[in-house]
């Protein structure tokens, strides 16, 4: 179960990062018009946070389910280090964006 959790979190972190950086088409919500659509870009007050989160959650759940079925044999320390590295990559990327603005 821990390996499946690690795989799921890795996929979540990777999908969340790629969805934003590669501008993948996701669910976008315009709170002014109260309209949801699928789009690559956002304009005005539209927001893609829901879509990015949805995409990453789907990727994480699917990967965890796949890992439960396939039962990967990677050593636990390697799997854990990979997962935490992907999470750290996300944090460093978003921290760099914050520091550029500040």
């Amino acid at each position, binding site marked *: 179960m*821990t390996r*499946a*959790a690690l795989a799921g979190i890795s996929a979540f972190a990777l999908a969340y990062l790629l969805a934003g950086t590669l501008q993948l088409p996701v669910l976008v919500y315009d*709170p002014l018009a109260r309209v949801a659509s699928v789009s690559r870009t956002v304009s005005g*007050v539209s927001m893609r946070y829901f879509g990015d989160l949805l995409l990453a959650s789907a990727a994480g759940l699917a990967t965890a389910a796949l890992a439960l079925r396939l039962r990967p044999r990677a050593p636990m320390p390697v*799997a854990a280090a990979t997962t*935490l590295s992907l*999470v750290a990559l996300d*944090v460093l990327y978003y921290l760099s964006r914050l520091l550029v603005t500040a």
Partner: protein
Amino acid sequence: MSDRALLLAHAVLGFGALFAGTHHAAHAVLSALGKPQTRALRRFGWIAPVAVIAQALCGLAIYPAYRLRVRAPDFDLYAPAVAQLFDFKEHLSALALALVIGASIAGRSDDAPDARWPIAALSSTGAAFLWAAAIIGLYVTARHPL
């Protein structure tokens, strides 16, 4: 429910998630150090994810109001750094959601010795992100509440 009531619920649920996540992390570390924590990990193995999911749903519900009433008329025009800080908090919250849920499920069902440190690492990282998100959330709300 009004936006302010939702913000209050988000804050209360956020602190619930913060403390449940921190408890889970503490028990996971103790377990990794060789002190049996099976009952505590089972208990916080459902409390922590339920609390984190509830506060995330509440946060998502008030996000449109934040966008329209706080970010667009204030932060985007006069404090773009605070807008970016809020975005950073949202990213930390998203990662914490995955980390706490993953660590909780693994902690409930995996007693293998080689899984203890990875679970402790996931849980501790998730708890640290929750703390950072809570502090940033309080700062942003103090700058401009809903």
